[in-house]
């Protein structure tokens, strides 16, 4: 695949692919590489959007997430929190620390689903505590955990499908695939792994293809991000939603991603200072951004119940 070095290519390189995508065909790994090597951002975005609209129309879901660090759960429920998900972040130091954090989060969540941990970290906890993964997950389920927060596909080993099944057998939902880090901007492997893990286990609702970590001095570019989102939408067509992180990638890039393949927004702020009024609240900001992209905002919670508006999760976001 020869690169176009001048940004002046015609759409010819992607024409055939675009026609197949429009006709509803699934793309190959070679097609995915073709997309990432091209600089025709508009053509790539149009393909991502075509599949997204075929699956979801203008519907765009989002979830407000209240993050709790595993080592520092708040003693009481903070003010002005309105969330669809209480998410425990960070790697637990031990099995006991994980159970304790879930208990603390459940105590302040007031019925809002509590999620937490990466499946990789739970495998580590199980190994370190000499327990089976399903036993660890069962204990966390009993403490109030509803779902494992993420499965980073690039870190998950060959036994990932077994681990997913073990967690699910213990009653935990395992629905979100993420990418910890991309080896390079043209890597298709995470999307391939996401597609294949879904083929092996089913049950995943979202894939977030943009990496959770990146270089400070050489962050991914806007082109890289849009291409990854569109490519993931096309390649991982067996996963319902492509997700983008509002806080990590910022409203501007995330909004553009919603027009090029993504249909779900993660990590919208759940806590308002109240000082700026409703016009500037995170809820109004996310809804306004989705509408400004010509899409329809629908709030959901951690277990994908739509129409969730933070009710039962505390005070309205004003």
């Amino acid at each position, binding site marked *: 695949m020869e690169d176009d070095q001048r940004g002046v290519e015609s759409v010819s390189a992607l024409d055939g692919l675009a026609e197949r995508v429009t006709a509803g065909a699934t793309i190959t790994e070679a097609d995915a590489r073709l997309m990432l090597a091209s600089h025709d951002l508009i053509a790539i975005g149009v393909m991502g959007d075509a599949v997204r609209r075929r699956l979801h129309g203008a519907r765009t879901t989002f979830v407000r997430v209240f993050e709790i660090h595993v080592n520092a759960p708040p003693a009481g429920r903070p003010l002005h929190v309105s969330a669809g998900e209480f998410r425990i972040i960070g790697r637990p130091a031990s099995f006991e620390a994980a159970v304790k954090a879930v208990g603390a989060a459940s105590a302040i969540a007031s019925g809002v689903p509590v999620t937490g941990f990466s499946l990789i970290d739970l495998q580590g906890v199980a190994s370190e505590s000499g327990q089976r993964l399903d036993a660890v997950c069962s204990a966390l389920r009993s403490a109030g955990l509803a779902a494992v927060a993420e499965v980073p596909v690039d870190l998950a080993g060959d036994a990932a499908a077994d681990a997913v099944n073990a967690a699910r057998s213990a009653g935990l939902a395992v629905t979100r695939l993420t990418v910890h880090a991309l080896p390079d901007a043209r890597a298709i492997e995470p999307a391939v792994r996401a597609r294949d893990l879904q083929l092996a286990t089913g049950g995943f609702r979202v894939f977030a293809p943009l990496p959770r970590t990146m270089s400070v001095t*050489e962050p991914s570019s806007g082109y*890289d991000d849009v291409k990854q989102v569109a490519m993931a939408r096309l390649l991982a067509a067996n996963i319902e939603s492509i997700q983008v992180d509002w806080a990590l990638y910022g409203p501007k890039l995330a909004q553009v991603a919603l027009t090029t393949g993504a249909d779900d927004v993660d990590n919208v702020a759940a806590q308002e200072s109240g000082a700026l009024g409703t016009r500037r609240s995170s809820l109004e900001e996310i809804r*306004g951004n989705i509408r400004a992209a010509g899409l329809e905002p629908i709030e959901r919670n951690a277990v994908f119940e739509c129409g969730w508006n933070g009710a039962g999760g505390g005070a309205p976001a004003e």
Partner: protein
Amino acid sequence: MSTEALADHVRNGGRLDAAGALELYLDAPTPLLGRLAGEIRRRKHPDGVVTYIIDRNVNYTNICVARCNFCAFYRPVGSAEGYVLGFDDIFRKIDETMALGGGQLLLQGGHNPDLPLEWYEDLFRSVKQRYPAFRLHALSPPEVVNLCRLSRLPVPEIIDRLVDAGLDSIPGGGAEILVDRVRKLLNCYSKATADEWLDVMRHAHRAGLRTTATMMYGTVETPEERLEHMFRLRELQDETGGFTAFIAWSYQPEHTELGGSEATGVEYLRTLATARLVLDNFDNLQASWVTQGGKVGQLSLAYGANDMGSVMIEENVVRAAGASYCMDEMEIVRNIENAGFTARRRNMHYEALGEPIFRGRQVPRTLELAVARGEDDATRPPEIGRYAARSAAEKKARQAGATE
């Protein structure tokens, strides 16, 4: 005309009228706008070059009597947070700029009643004396209007005197939206009406200067008024041909009197692409990474932009309103090349100067833009006393200084 018919009209080199531009701006799918803008960019720049400049944004004072309600940067006369940079401060900033390969300052500031025309003339002359080849891209039209009022001289004479002292080109700041209904609502009508802004540019072009044009959108204006702004610029460009580039950016609301929220990224890309279609007599469109961030700044290259603007080195105005993005030369070039273009340094006339500086020699990375001066720095420049104070606050401050 239908959207498709309008698209064909543009593809065939036709000129948009107000109704057609509005139809496309409001109703055309965003990818279609991007494709059309990209086609026009390719027509104007078939070599696939995207330019950028190494210069520094210096704000010589934040003291301002204009009181625009969208501005978070200014401080009123007499404020303890008000400052004026000394000539030596500016020389130091020029030294730092030259060390990074820069050859120009973008010099703008508040309408400070205690800085008369002579202060600017002396500053420009001393810069040129020390740095003969260094360029001054300075004083937006409202600042020129302010000098006309302070000195009671007409615009052409002010421009002649500033050029004589060393002014090289005029930045297009202070345009906001060139519709007086909007300017009155933003409390910037009195600093310069739409006609006054355009008139300064007209005189500058007649005097042989090249200038840029800007648009700050996303406050109180309607889509029709954004387009009216573009059409007024297109009309003047037809008349003079003096604009080098157009730069649009979204209003930044943090810490401003006006408040509200910022226009979104998709709105920015649509506005930029529409500007490329309407402003068919402008060669260059800049990406505003300083307001949109590096990622959407780079995406601008797919929506009609052919210039990544400046590395800036320093920025104070947008930062005061909540945006604090940073791109050094290496990052700008990386983004240009990552999008498939060839990166070239340019000067204020958008003439290519050559390969990136960092490819020829070691340049330190910059991960955060500098500010005008340190937070605790309350020094007063020594030369300020050479110029007659006009404001009561400044007179009082000088009296207090004299009795200490």
